[in-house]
């Protein structure tokens, strides 16, 4: 079919007072290469039209050409801030397909590293959100603490950002007890520093008024758009994949899923701050209950899953990631579908931005914690 000529998005009422502003691919406030065409009336947004694809790398086609282990590095580069969750999702999906067993020690270390990754992602979000609102100092404070996490993870995984640590059947190598001690020290120190974050930002009256009642997401919209993650939990719906479909031993740990009823930027902020604390609890419990044992079970060198399909859901710092693999019995996947959380979360932005001030639209985008390479895949 001839789709070479596309209809342009027309504005409902065009008059001389409106103008189109390009919140361009290069913009300090869009967290990546996101382009939003805004039709504005002065400072108010009449219509927002996100244009995606500036970072599109055809990850799904690449996965069809690579063997299952070769896809591992690609998966980590989609969401670079929460790379371990993506890593976990791919590894668990293939393990489910091939029915590999994972030793308990490996599961526990997977949980510890994933939760540390979640904390570092939320810290960066905290800094970047405040940067969007105009406060420069919190970013530096968050990065100081995040460096400690990155150092811990670098000792174990070898990378600082795009981790590719898990393997099919477990982990590539064991972790020594000294590392667990260092993680516990970090947690103790971080717990003492966390009140400082709340002093600087959460109690600030300027921040409160910038975030209160801005970008309210109603619960009945959530299901229509397929939202997940802290955005959804900030609107009062208690949905966390770690509770719904526990994986990698999460059912053994005692943690709360924070939920906030208000649905505005401030609610989403509180949910993420509480999630940081809950992640610290999970890591402590995992380290406390870790057992001795192997970290990798015996898996064949050549991964040739049986024919079939599998869907694996994982809770990344941004929401629910579903990896759907269709296998035809060969060593390369037949079809891989990455259902990334930011894709669905961004689809509600056009609706939220309508009628808002430009400053508010950027605050909403900041509170949604987008990683655009994840959206574009």
């Amino acid at each position: 079919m001839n789709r070479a000529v596309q209809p342009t998005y027309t504005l409902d009422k065009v008059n001389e007072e409106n103008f189109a502003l390009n919140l361009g691919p290069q913009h300090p406030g869009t967290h990546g290469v996101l382009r939003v065409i805004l039709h504005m009336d002065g400072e108010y947004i009449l219509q927002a039209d996100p244009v995606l694809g500036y970072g599109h790398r055809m990850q799904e086609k690449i996965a069809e050409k690579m063997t299952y282990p070769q896809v591992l590095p690609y998966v980590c580069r989609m969401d670079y801030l929460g790379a371990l969750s993506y890593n976990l999702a791919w590894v668990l999906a293939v393990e489910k397909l091939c029915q590999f067993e994972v030793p308990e020690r490996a599961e526990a270390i997977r949980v510890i590293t994933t939760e540390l990754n979640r904390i570092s992602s939320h810290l960066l979000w905290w800094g970047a959100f405040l940067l969007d609102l105009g406060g420069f100092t919190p970013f530096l404070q968050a990065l100081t603490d995040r460096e400690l996490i990155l150092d811990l993870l670098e000792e174990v995984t070898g990378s600082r950002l795009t981790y590719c640590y898990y393997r099919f059947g477990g982990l590539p190598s064991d972790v020594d007890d000294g590392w667990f001690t260092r993680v516990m020290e970090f947690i103790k120190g971080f717990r003492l520093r966390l009140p400082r974050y709340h002093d600087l930002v959460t109690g600030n009256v300027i921040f409160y008024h910038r975030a209160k009642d801005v970008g309210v997401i109603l619960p009945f919209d959530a299901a229509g758009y397929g939202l997940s993650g802290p955005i959804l939990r900030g609107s009062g719906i208690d949905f966390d994949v770690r509770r719904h479909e526990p994986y990698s031993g999460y059912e053994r740990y005692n943690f709360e899923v924070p939920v906030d009823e208000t649905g505005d930027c401030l609610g989403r902020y509180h949910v993420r701050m509480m999630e940081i604390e809950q992640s610290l609890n999970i890591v402590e419990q995992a380290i406390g209950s870790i057992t001795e044992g192997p970290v990798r079970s015996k898996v064949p060198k050549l991964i040739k899953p049986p024919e079939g399909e599998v869907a694996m859901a994982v809770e990344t710092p941004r929401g629910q990631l579903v990896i759907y693999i269709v296998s035809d019995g060969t060593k390369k996947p037949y079809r891989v579908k990455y259902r990334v959380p930011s894709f669905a979360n961004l689809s509600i932005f056009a609706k939220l931005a309508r009628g808002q001030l430009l400053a508010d639209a950027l605050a909403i985008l900041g509170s949604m914690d987008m990683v655009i390479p994840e959206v574009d895949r």
Partner: protein
Amino acid sequence: MAMNNPLQKALAKADIEYQPTEFPGSGLHCSLVLDKEQVQPLARALARNGFFIETVTALDKLKEGTFECIYLFNHYEESLRLLVRVSLSRNRPVQPSIGKIFPGAVWHERETTEMFGIRFEGCPDSRNLLLPEDADFHPLCKDFSGVS
């Protein structure tokens, strides 16, 4: 069968038989093969029962000569993943859109349209999403060998 499962309730409303699959092994609670006309009533029943759209995508079965349009739904309260597949011909594939029932499906359908060439009838917006505006090739098809 007991009507205690939102999925069973929704399927019953849409007159579709419930076919459970083994969840831990496949990650799916129910996998259905439907005709294209059954998708919209099912989507309405699911929307009314609190299901959310996970994704809309497609599978290119080159050997059989068909496309399979794949829908994944899930529920916020209980873990109930439903996979729906609809078989479409490879020549001019058309499928009714659920974009008006689940607003989030519009982006998924846009992506499936540009990647496979499946046209979703009634979709409020069917421009290219990830590919350039003037791209008229469909990369995820198995017989796609590059843009010349």
